[in-house]
């Protein structure tokens, strides 16, 4: 039970902090959220700077504790998010690193780390959400290529991505987890159609991707044919320990801002609200400690994440939604104003109990994998 960081870790933190202080003022202005090419350019420019400063592979090679410090410090400093490089750095990249051939690693990884290539994710389908393994996008072998037809959904950054990590069904006769393969698909291949998907917040953060007889070379398959589900599980579990570091740091900052606003507009005098904010503060503090606990666990087990992520996500998604409800109470009528960040974030927060495994699915995972209760419905 040691919450103090070691000398090496503190040195890492100090160097990073110094670098951030120097580099952040030199960044260009943040792009318009609706201008996807500008966002890509901005995010990739940031990744290039990280690369040149030696931080590009912090998600891959650094220790979980260093990663924690990196995510904490960048968030505290207000540095850009991983943004368009999310899938490349945190999903596809690690998968290729772990499961790809030497040739595949050499082909795809350096451009991810340099911020040259942007990846997106083609996993979910309209009829395969919580039940991802029921995906139906078909890949039929034709010579040295797969011919892929189907539809993907909830694909972020599809419009500006170079590559897509794609799950396809290569054996429709096998049990549903057994007939899936993992492909790297170039997004400019003929037959790929992208349709932006408008969310309830009015933005187009996601897209649908339609695949009509898209030819993907067999050499783009990572892992064995029909072994894609196992390959995918590696991807999905990769950074669970540190997945939420930035978000918890951000929430604690948000809570502070909210308290400041409440003090300014007088709602702080309402004990109902004030005590609510106190309770949320205690919860986010505990979530920060839970993050540290999960990172310590990951550090000790060589980076293999446990199911602590499900425990974390269950409470975090709830607490963050509560945070926006409290914000709405503090803002009063102004909570209906879309030009307030709070309002847009409140709308976005509605996805927290759904995306990346609904709370219902997370509770199943906790009950079955941690508590050992029987599988059932």
């Amino acid at each position: 039970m040691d919450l103090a960081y070691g000398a090496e870790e503190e040195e890492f933190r100090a160097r990073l902090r110094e670098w951030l202080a120097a580099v952040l003022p030199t960044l260009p202005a943040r792009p318009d959220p609706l201008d996807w090419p500008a966002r890509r350019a901005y995010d990739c420019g940031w990744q290039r700077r990280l690369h040149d400063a030696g931080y590009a592979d912090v998600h891959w090679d650094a220790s979980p504790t260093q990663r924690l410090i990196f995510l904490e410090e960048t968030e505290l400093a207000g540095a850009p998010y991983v943004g368009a490089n999310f899938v490349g750095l945190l999903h596809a990249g690690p998968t290729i690193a772990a499961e790809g051939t030497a040739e595949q690693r050499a082909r795809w990884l350096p451009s991810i780390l340099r911020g040259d290539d942007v990846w997106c994710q083609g996993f979910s389908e309209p009829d395969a959400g919580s039940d991802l393994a029921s995906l139906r996008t078909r890949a039929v072998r034709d010579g040295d290529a797969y011919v892929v037809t189907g539809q993907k959904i909830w694909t972020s950054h599809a419009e500006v991505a170079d590559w897509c990590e794609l799950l396809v069904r290569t054996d429709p006769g096998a049990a549903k987890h057994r007939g899936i393969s993992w492909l790297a698909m170039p997004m400019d291949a003929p037959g790929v159609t992208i349709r932006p998907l408008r969310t309830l917040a009015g933005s187009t953060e996601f897209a649908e991707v339609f695949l009509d007889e898209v030819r993907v070379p067999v050499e783009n398959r990572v892992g064995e044919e029909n072994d894609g589900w196992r390959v995918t599980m590696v991807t999905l579990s990769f950074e669970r320990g540190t997945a939420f570091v930035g978000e918890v740091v951000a929430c604690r900052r948000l809570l502070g801002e909210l308290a400041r606003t409440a003090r300014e507009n007088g709602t702080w005098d309402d004990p109902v609200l004030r005590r609510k904010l106190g309770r949320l503060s205690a919860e986010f503090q505990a979530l920060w400690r839970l993050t540290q606990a999960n990172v310590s666990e990951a550090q000790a087990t060589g980076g293999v994440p446990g199911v602590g992520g499900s425990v974390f996500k269950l409470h975090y998604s709830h607490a963050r939604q509560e945070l926006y409800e409290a914000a709405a109470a503090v803002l009063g009528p102004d909570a209906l104003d879309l030009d307030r960040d709070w309002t847009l974030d409140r709308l976005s927060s509605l996805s927290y109990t759904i995306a990346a495994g609904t709370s219902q699915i997370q509770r199943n995972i906790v009950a079955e994998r941690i508590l050992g209760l029987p599988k059932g419905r």
Partner: protein
Amino acid sequence: MDFRLTEDQRALRKGVRELLARLFDREALRAAVDAPSLDRELWRELGAAGFFALRVPEEEGGVGLGLPEAVLLFEEAGRVLLPGPLVATHVAAGVVPGASEGEVVVTDASEGLVAWLDEADVVLGSTEGAVPLRSVDPLTPLHRVPGIGGAGDEGGTRPQGRRPVAPTLPQRRDPHAPAGRTPTTGGAGVLPVADELVAVLLTAAEQVGSAEATTETAVSYAGEREQFGQVIGGFQAVKHLCAGMLVRAELARVAVRAAAVTGDPVEIAGAKLLADEAATGNARDCLQVYGGMGFTWEADVHLHLKRAWVRARLRLPAARAEEVVAEQL
């Protein structure tokens, strides 16, 4: 005592539901979302159908019905997300000329907000310095009256085109009585500003309609959507979410309808409280049942949720409603 709807009330509800299905079906809803503006033709048709004049006495050209019937109307309006300052215009019928007929659009300032200010012909209450804000609900354009009910006036005070009009409204009115009739019971000050009470109750009725609509939507989706080899409505977690939605909606419905019968201010405040919770809570749960698909602009769930948020803030928000109810304990 018979708390069920009468034959006439059932017929009224059926008639309104059919009317709204004709005047404002889902296609019309989505068209209105894409191009939000107040449809004057629709407004006049509602007027012609008696939507606004429902509580105006027959001798004054109205339908001559009471609050219970009005509540049924507004439940139906809430179900289909009928847009416009319906409550304000309904309450103004018989007082503001043209409101009854749907010729005049009336809105009002409530809790520092004014809905549909740019489209309204008559505005009740003070809207001095009101500035437009980008409303969370695409179907409810809002202006903000600075300095009232919240975080202040960072928005500044942009000039606006129209002068607010505030005609003299009767300050008290028996909520049992059709609009415009003089109170027949109660001494001075028994019912403070009955019109505002009526507005609160009708807003609650819209919330109830919305809560019922999202319940039905969730149940219907849960009965169709398949995951893990069965419809998701077969999973207890989803079933129990849906059951909770029904309970909230039912409780709010009886609260609102009973408050319409008694006209009791405390009962109205309590009904608003439960109706707000039912509408916002059920829209949230509906979204959870829908999963990702509910998170899209194309699904109607978010329209219900956003409107429910607006209605919850517009008239007697929860904090004050709780105090009103606690007061009489």
